[in-house]
């Protein structure tokens, strides 16, 4: 089986069928149309195979349903202007670094590290924690509410498709899109740092990327879940909640108690991703605790982030499952 057919098998799987063997005469030859068909009187004839008789159809697998929803949502993203605006934002990294080196030099006086390749990468990703909240809110915060607002949910959900596939397919698309944008930002930052450095700390960059991935996972799950509970949906509320309100409360609590354990929560995954690279500054509310974070516990942060994601997805799914599909007009 070649690659093309493999890909086709996933996106366009054949409908499963339980077809009996064609009827045959005494000599073992298939019966002709007149004998097998039931439309002799009208003049129309068809074999069992042509008429799809005795073929039992079943709904597609949950994985295929999820992929179908995923592709529908990806198509919607391909039409969304925000997708390209956010991509352009990542593209600004090399543009600013190459076109305005004085700006980078100026930033270095405010704690932008540049002595090592990884600290340079951290400096180029200065706004990563902030963008983590903004991008996931834009991509995932309004997905579910817009389905109901635009009434497309009333067409999609009655399809032979489980609500789980509908819910997780849409989330998966939002997560993958955000991941793509952040991977683009990383590739731009590393490529820009290549101008001055040939070598990096691979383990630190890997850890940073994993923390960012889990951050995308947790932030998008939170925004998606909040969207499931709102009628109109908002890109601003999940952003404000995850990037400002909760981090600021945690910062106050940590500074009052002198215990920084709460910085293990997913709201600080962006800061941790920069901190593990040696970054001392970030353009976010969590910047003030960056130097106090315990970055030896990154795997614990990853575990908490995954648990946070699972909890919010379960909550959002529970809400979607219980959602009534009546139009109240």
């Amino acid at each position, binding site marked *: 089986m070649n*690659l093309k057919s*493999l*890909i086709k*098998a*996933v996106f366009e799987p054949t409908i499963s069928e339980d077809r009996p063997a064609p009827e045959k005469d005494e000599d073992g030859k298939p019966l002709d149309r007149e004998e097998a068909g039931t439309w002799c009187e009208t003049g129309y004839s068809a074999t069992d195979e042509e008429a799809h008789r005795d073929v039992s159809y079943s709904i597609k697998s949950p994985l295929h349903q999820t992929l*179908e929803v995923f*592709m*529908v949502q*990806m*198509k*919607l*993203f*391909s*039409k969304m202007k925000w*997708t390209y605006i956010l991509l352009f934002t990542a593209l600004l990294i090399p543009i600013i670094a190459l076109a305005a080196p004085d700006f980078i030099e100026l930033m270095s006086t405010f704690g932008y*590290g540049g*002595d*090592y*390749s*990884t*600290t340079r990468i951290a400096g180029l990703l200065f706004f990563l924690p902030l963008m983590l909240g903004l991008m996931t809110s834009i991509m995932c915060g309004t997905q579910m509410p817009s389905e109901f607002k635009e009434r*497309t949910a009333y*067409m999609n959900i009655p399809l032979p498709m489980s609500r789980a596939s509908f819910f997780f397919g849409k989330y998966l698309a939002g997560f*993958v*899109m955000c*991941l*793509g944008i952040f*991977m*683009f930002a*990383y*590739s731009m930052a*590393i*490529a820009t*740092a*290549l101008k001055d*450095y*040939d*070598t*990096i*700390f*691979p*383990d*630190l*960059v*890997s850890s940073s*990327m994993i923390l960012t991935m889990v951050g995308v996972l947790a932030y998008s799950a939170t925004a998606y879940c909040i969207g499931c509970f709102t009628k109109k949906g908002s890109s601003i509320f999940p952003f404000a909640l995850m990037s400002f309100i909760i981090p600021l409360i945690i910062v106050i609590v940590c500074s009052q108690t002198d215990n920084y354990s709460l910085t293990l929560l997913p709201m600080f995954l962006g800061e941790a991703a920069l*901190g*593990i*690279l*040696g970054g*001392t500054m970030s353009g976010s509310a969590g910047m003030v605790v*960056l*130097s106090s*974070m*315990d*970055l*030896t516990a*990154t795997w614990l942060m990853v575990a908490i982030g995954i648990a946070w994601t699972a909890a919010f997805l379960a909550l959002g799914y529970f809400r979607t499952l219980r959602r009534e599909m009546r139009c109240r007009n």
Partner: protein
Amino acid sequence: MSKLTAIVATMLMVVITVVPLASDDSDATDSTRFSDSYILQTTYKWADGTVVRNDCLYYKESNTEAIAAFEKCIEDRAGTLPADDSKTLKAGEMVRIYYATKSIAVEVPITVRTAGGTEDKSQMFTGLVYPYPPGMFVKAGDSFTIQITKAVDNYGKDVICYVNDGGVIYDLSEPYTKTMKTTSEFKFDTDSPSGADGRFYIDIEYEASGFSVPSGSAALFAGICAAVTIAIFCILAYAGMKPKWAK
């Protein structure tokens, strides 16, 4: 398809996991040169008289060889500063004056002694080189140890190196150990120069362990990130082209 996905995912994970093994930590006994000062410069038409302050370096503008050697030494942190022309300056000559200071926003004093007395010709300088303190990259979780066995400035004076750890001062002439909670560059402070003396550089010898040097390929990681991005945007483009999924 599941097999292909599994193979691709496994290969990707192997690359991401194995590549870090290429990085190695470094333990070393070494020496380095650094500057804890801003190096400022100005040009000045020399008045009649002699140099009073000896904390600047004076090179005649015509002495391009010495100027080039000085600037190369400062930039490369290598070599020996060339002797200046402060003893042979004549009235009317254009002079390049270099000054090292811990604060960039200072008016550098140029004091000239003439027959009529001491004259102050102070003026603002422009920055040439920013401080380049020594740094050792220490990863979170690593235990870093350092002892500075020798620290001497370009005037041959001993320099005291210390680190301020949460308000407690540690003299680095004794072994100092710290387990890092964050990934950061370990930097230390130096005592202030005596009087108004600037220091053009400080040579140190140290014994350190637990720091790391980068050894992985940046191009490889840029490639991995680009490949993931391209794969995702291929799916986006495919979804956008396929009318079947259109609403």
